């Protein structure tokens, strides 16, 4: 029995090889059609599903093949690169499950002569420095600055007296990427001319509506003299929580300008009959992260056009008046409503 068992796999494989080898050994690369991989760390996240959707849109427009694989850890990522190589892919866009996989991923890609474009998370080398691989990611600072600038513009447009006005920043400084958002907003407000001393910070314990509600209530209690509020935070929830807290104390759309950050959570406010203090949202979208990264890589492979080394994206300010158009522009019209 044991001999049969040991012999069988060998015999089977030889048989299989003999049967199929003439027909199916296609040369994987060369002058053939272009194939590009798109590997993401969390395929169950809407953000990455949208990246895939936009990458596929690019593939359809240019007419190349796109292979999408979810790679939640380092082993699966390395295996996926082998699969891409076998499929004849000449390169891939990757959002790595860990930035320190950079050297291993690049070594593997080089061994298959594949080009790499990183998205969302930037590779870190063994020396701790960012690696010199094309990258596109969100700029938390730029997003924050955009919010700050928009707040100031609206503050000026409404002609509010500065002595009655203050800004409430609902912050979460434990997480550096979101801290950069509120820091950016603060920076832009001050640069535009808003007095730094009139920006009051409330630290939230959790980055959700209740967390922001509590944080804002403390700020409101500390500053009962303020008649009009600008509100910004790390996300849509932070601003929504603060706006709800202010509404509880008699403020409304006339006396609050709140601008959030997000991919659609705040938009429900715009569907309400009456405007609320939630004035706008800085919408972030994976459109460029999915479409443009793939497009850059395609042109790099096809025509040898070197992609830009480091692209930072920011958001688009969506207000009650224009948000439907913004959603369409960002390709989010069917996904932003949860």
């Amino acid at each position: 029995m044991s001999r049969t068992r040991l012999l069988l796999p060998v015999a089977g494989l030889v048989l299989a090889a003999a049967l199929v080898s003439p027909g199916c050994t296609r040369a994987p690369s060369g002058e053939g059609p272009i194939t590009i991989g798109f590997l993401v760390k969390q395929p169950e996240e809407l953000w990455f599903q949208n990246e895939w959707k936009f990458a596929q849109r690019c593939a359809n427009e240019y007419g190349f093949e796109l292979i999408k694989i979810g790679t939640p850890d380092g082993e699966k990522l390395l295996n996926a690169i082998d699969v891409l190589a076998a499929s004849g892919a000449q390169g891939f866009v990757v959002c790595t499950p860990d930035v320190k996989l950079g050297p291993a991923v690049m070594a593997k890609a080089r061994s298959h002569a594949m080009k790499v474009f990183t998205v969302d998370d930037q590779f870190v080398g063994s020396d701790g420095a960012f690696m010199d691989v094309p990258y596109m990611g969100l700029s938390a600072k730029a997003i924050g600055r955009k919010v700050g600038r928009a707040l100031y513009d609206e503050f000026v447009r409404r002609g509010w007296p500065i002595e009655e006005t203050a800004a409430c920043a609902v912050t979460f400084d434990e997480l550096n990427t979101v801290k950069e958002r509120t820091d950016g907003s603060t920076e832009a407000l001050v640069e535009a001319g808003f007095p730094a001393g009139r920006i009051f910070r409330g630290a939230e314990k959790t980055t959700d509506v209740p967390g922001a509600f509590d944080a804002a209530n403390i700020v409101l209690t500390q500053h009962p003299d303020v008649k009009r509020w600008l509100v910004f935070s790390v996300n849509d929830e932070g601003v929504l929580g603060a706006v709800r807290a202010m509404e509880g104390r008699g403020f409304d759309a006339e006396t609050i300008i709140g601008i959030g950050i997000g991919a659609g959570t705040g938009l429900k406010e715009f569907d309400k009959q009456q405007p609320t203090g939630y004035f706008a949202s800085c919408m972030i979208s994976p459109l460029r992260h999915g479409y443009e990264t793939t497009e850059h890589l395609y042109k790099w492979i096809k025509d040898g056009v070197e992609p830009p080394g480091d692209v930072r994206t920011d958001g688009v300010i969506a207000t009650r008046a224009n948000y439907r158009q913004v959603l369409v522009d960002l390709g989010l019209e069917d996904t932003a409503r949860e």
Partner: protein
Amino acid sequence: MAAPTQRAHPLHHLLDNAGMLLVFIALFVGVSVFVPNFFTWVNMKGLALSVSMVGMVACTMLFCLASGHFDLSVESVVAFSGVLAAVVTNQTGSVALGIAAGVAAGGVVGVLNGVVVAKFHINALITTLAAMQIVRGLGFIVSGGSAVSVSNTAFFVLGNASPLGVPAPVWITVVCFLAFGIVLRASAFGRHTLAVGGNEQAAWLAGVPVDRIKIAIFTAQGLMAGFAGVVLASRMTSGQPNTSVGFALDVIAACVLGGVSLSGGVGTMTGAVVGVLIMGTVQNAMNLMNVPTFYQYVARGLILLGAVLFDQLRQRRRR
């Protein structure tokens, strides 16, 4: 190990004993014909590499299952050992010390699992579930919460060398399959393992040192998972504390697919190899065919369910 039936017709005999193997061969030929790029040298290498981790740990998981237990902690041991090897290599500058530390750490976890299961008679599910969480935590603690890059390039040889054009982890896996296959078939330890899994009382009465066997099995499992973790860290050039979540179930599923009984007493190394290869081939083919990720989850589950049902049918026919 399934005893061959004397009376059976040769063809029945073959079907009974090589069922999953035939399935695998049919599968392999099928995807070779129908999936473009599958049967190419590049892909065969990639496929072999992708099953190497599951393959290594399946060798010892087979013993664990055959003795009627299982070990969920392997996935955390893989992560922890990889991280520890990276940290020790960085601090001492010695790759050998790093590898030794990683493997030894796995061994320690294995011994503790074995002692708790054998001496304190705690269910292996609970024991190794607890160990899984403890060791995952240790991995994060030792790494300081994020991946540890290794700067000494000698560390990368284990996972990235390619003797005779075949990646080192594949060679290691093949050696493990052969070595543990021989141990299972031809050594007292292997026979005792199956005896304990088949009927622990009877084995004990027959003089099998049941507790020692169990501790040895878990220790071997820990050492192997530790070693696999070091190989993985070498491949990734860094120790990743969050790697391989769900890996233990992949290994167990592969073994079960290869006809290893979850209730113990039955299991062959050929079966485990076939199980590992079927899982790997299906995954590889689905990726080559660009099957959407969510459908892949469904397909993998259905295949596992189909395999155990098929196995059940086979066993019933044999009786």
